């Protein structure tokens, strides 16, 4: 620890929360990212209400048409309302993000904590497991699993994404737990004979909140990207619209050749914007939680 890792800060432990707020309100990156994500979230929530047509309804007899006052994002080759598909797709995207990201983070935390906290054999075992899952290329597994699932819902998709995405979270958490578990307050807790679960969640977890939040955000983004890829290959949910699926269909139906940019640009753009903002939010948070980066 460099000397100027402020003494007052360590002293101000109780004030942590409002300190967080304090920095948060001053961190451009966090704000920009948050705003963008929230905008899309809002769109996902109210969009379907605004949409005049069902995503799959053949609204426009003229087939593919550029954006207009009638169809805000134009229509697909079949005259389906792109806007409607887009907003419904957004919903699916956020759902996957929350479910997949959430579950992934949870597993990661569980494994990471236990490994880091217990150490010894448990650690070794979990470590091996982690390394194995890390090495196996996620998408390849997802492809195969997805390919053989008869009925695929957003939910199952999320689960499988989560099952392959947790390792690096586990690693980060493990490392953190390691360093934390050697701190005095844990020893104290130990001496006062607390249950280890209690120690983990009562003592260590709070000190790692920042990590958990950031881990979740990254998982969230990762899940969205993975889902998009699966959907694009046509292995996503078979009975729901999604941004990836939109891209796939637009390509299959010659959107490129007919120059129907309004069909394949929005979905990808949305994904990029959301995931990008998530990442940038993450940097913001990192700066907030980690004073070292603040000076940069």
């Amino acid at each position, binding site marked *: 620890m460099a000397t100027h890792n402020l003494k007052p800060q360590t002293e101000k432990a109780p004030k942590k929360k409002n300190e967080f707020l304090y920095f948060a309100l001053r961190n451009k990156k966090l704000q920009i990212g948050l705003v963008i994500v929230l905008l899309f979230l809002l769109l996902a929530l109210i969009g379907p209400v605004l949409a005049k047509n069902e995503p799959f309804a*053949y609204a426009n007899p003229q*087939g*593919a048409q550029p954006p207009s006052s009638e169809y805000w994002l134009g229509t697909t080759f079949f005259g389906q309302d792109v806007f409607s598909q887009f907003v419904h797709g957004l919903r699916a995207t956020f759902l996957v993000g929350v479910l997949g990201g959430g579950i992934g983070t949870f597993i990661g935390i569980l494994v990471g904590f236990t490994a880091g906290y217990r150490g010894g054999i448990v650690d070794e075992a979990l470590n091996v497991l982690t390394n194995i899952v890390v090495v196996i290329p996620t998408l390849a597994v997802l492809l195969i699993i997805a*390919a053989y699932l008869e009925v695929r819902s957003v939910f199952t998709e999320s689960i499988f994404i989560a099952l392959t995405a947790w390792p690096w979270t586990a690693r980060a958490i493990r490392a953190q737990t390691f360093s934390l578990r050697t701190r005095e307050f844990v020893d104290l807790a130990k001496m006062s004979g607390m249950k280890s679960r209690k120690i983990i969640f009562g003592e260590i977890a709070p000190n790692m909140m920042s990590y958990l939040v950031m881990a979740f955000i990254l998982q969230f983004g990762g899940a969205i990207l993975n889902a998009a890829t699966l959907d694009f290959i046509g292995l996503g949910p078979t009975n729901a619209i999604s941004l990836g699926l939109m891209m796939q*269909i637009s390509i299959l139906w*010659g959107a490129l*050749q007919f120059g129907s940019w309004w069909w394949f640009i929005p979905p990808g753009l949305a994904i990029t914007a959301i995931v990008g903002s998530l990442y940038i939010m993450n940097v913001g948070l990192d700066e907030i939680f980690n004073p070292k980066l603040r000076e940069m």
Partner: protein
Amino acid sequence: MKRATFFLSILLALSLLLSACQTAAEPTEVAEPVDEQETEPVEEPVVEAPEETVVYDRSETLYVSGAAWGPASTWNPFQPGSLANTTGTLGYVYETLFAYDPMTGEMIPWLAESGEWVDDATYVVTLRDGLTWSDGEALTADDVKFTFDLGQQYAALWFSPMWNYLSSVTADSATQVTFAFGDDILYQEWSNNLYNIPIVPEHLWSSKTEEEIIVGANENPIGSGAYLYDTHAEDRNIWVRNENWWGIDVFGTPAPKRIVDIRTSSNNVALGMVTMGDIDLSNNFLPGIAELSKQGYVDTYFEGPPYMLSANTAVLFLNTTLKPLDDAAFRRALAFAIDVPSIVNVAYAQLVAAASPSGLLPSLSTFEDADVIAELGYSFDTAQAQQILADAGYVDIDDDGFVETPDGDPIELQVTCPSGWTDWMAAIDIIASSAQAAGINVQSTYPDYGAWNTELQSGTFNMTLNNWAAMSNTPWTLYNLLFRHPIQEQMQSGNFGRYDNQTIFDLVDELARVPMTDIAGMQAVTSQIQELMLTEMPMIPLWYNGLWAQFSTAHWTNWPAEGNADNPTLPTTWSGYWQLGGLMNLINLEPVVAE
């Protein structure tokens, strides 16, 4: 860091070289038949044709696409249809005794000069003179006998069941073969087989093992046809004209010196290439062709809707083992409820035509009973559908907008098609919504192809689309698919709805036994079948899938088109269509002479 960049460039060059050589060495990579010994390595194309320049001469090369489903893997002419990624194995290389012209409905003598029934149980084929294999050997009656005998020898060959009624094949002379038959001869199947069984050279095939014959890859096929195997890669098969093809004097010389059969990964690739004139003939199903055709980017058979000839019938199979689909009235109501016009106009943007209730292709309209159709036929009519439902006691009890069964059970049916088959997905969406409009709760779902196929064959679906009956010279082909029997655990190739009705089964078998020449006899049976079919509605013919064909006149002209008398053929490269006039099309094409 300098080193890094240097190292990198080396690697680049290396991997480039690697893949280039790899592709160059392609043909040697071709699979061996399942057992490893006797590997006759294929000559490197460059070596094989040294005068060949790197870039093919456009003016004598025909680029086609839409026939191959995947990379070429087998040149075995006996391979079942869905494996025939190498279109032309049967057609370019191997030939049949007869061809069939769906335009005129006539059998065209091909290897055979003539063939006739000397009596009810004896069929005599006379071969043309001077038939040769591409290796110079003569093609004789012995080859024909050898080929047909294989069916007797190996049950796993698709045409083997023919031997249930075929009793012997004898080569009377170099050019004459006599087929002797036993009891209940399936004349229809026989005539169908005449233009589907490829004749293979005895002098090369007699040494093959059973496995090689049935499932062998047979690379470097030696046939009698108009084209020779040149080379192939992941995404293309290349054929060169057989300059001493026996047929040149008989039919004329095929125009393209070389045919590059491109396998496009996805429709959009083909679409791009055909609009840019990089592909001369695309048999892919391409969205929006109607539009492009109007704008003159591509040509199609018809100037206006449906633009395409009809290739096969898309039929909605109903699982007749389930309530309420086991009720004929309900099925009929469904037939009226489905909004076929929208399918044609929206899902296909007018690229297809609505199907006749008989399910028969226009080319077989002779076998349609107009009166029966007029009396029992159906068309999109929601009110009518609702009427039928009401009469049959299907009413909406809990007013959720959907009817319940007469005994009050709610109805919820799934209509399926493979996920990713976008045109069909669109179609079943319309089926579902229009059925709902009539008060029948139908939902559309898209399982994966595999899952769908399993449901289809094991009969666990409710309603699903299928179009597996190939274009044919006889209505029997379709009805044989629709009413495939006996009903088994797995229905692999027909009657997926497991409609069990002995009367109609007997009729189909009876039809099979009517000689092809006895048109009236056939019509008698078909009209009975149609009457039963339309009253029972075990499945619902909806529309004709098109013989997708869009072509560019940038490099080749005189394409088949409505009213083009100079080329009355099918503009297709699909497997199984070469004997249906596809090859004649190649002969009729004319290169654009660059001035």
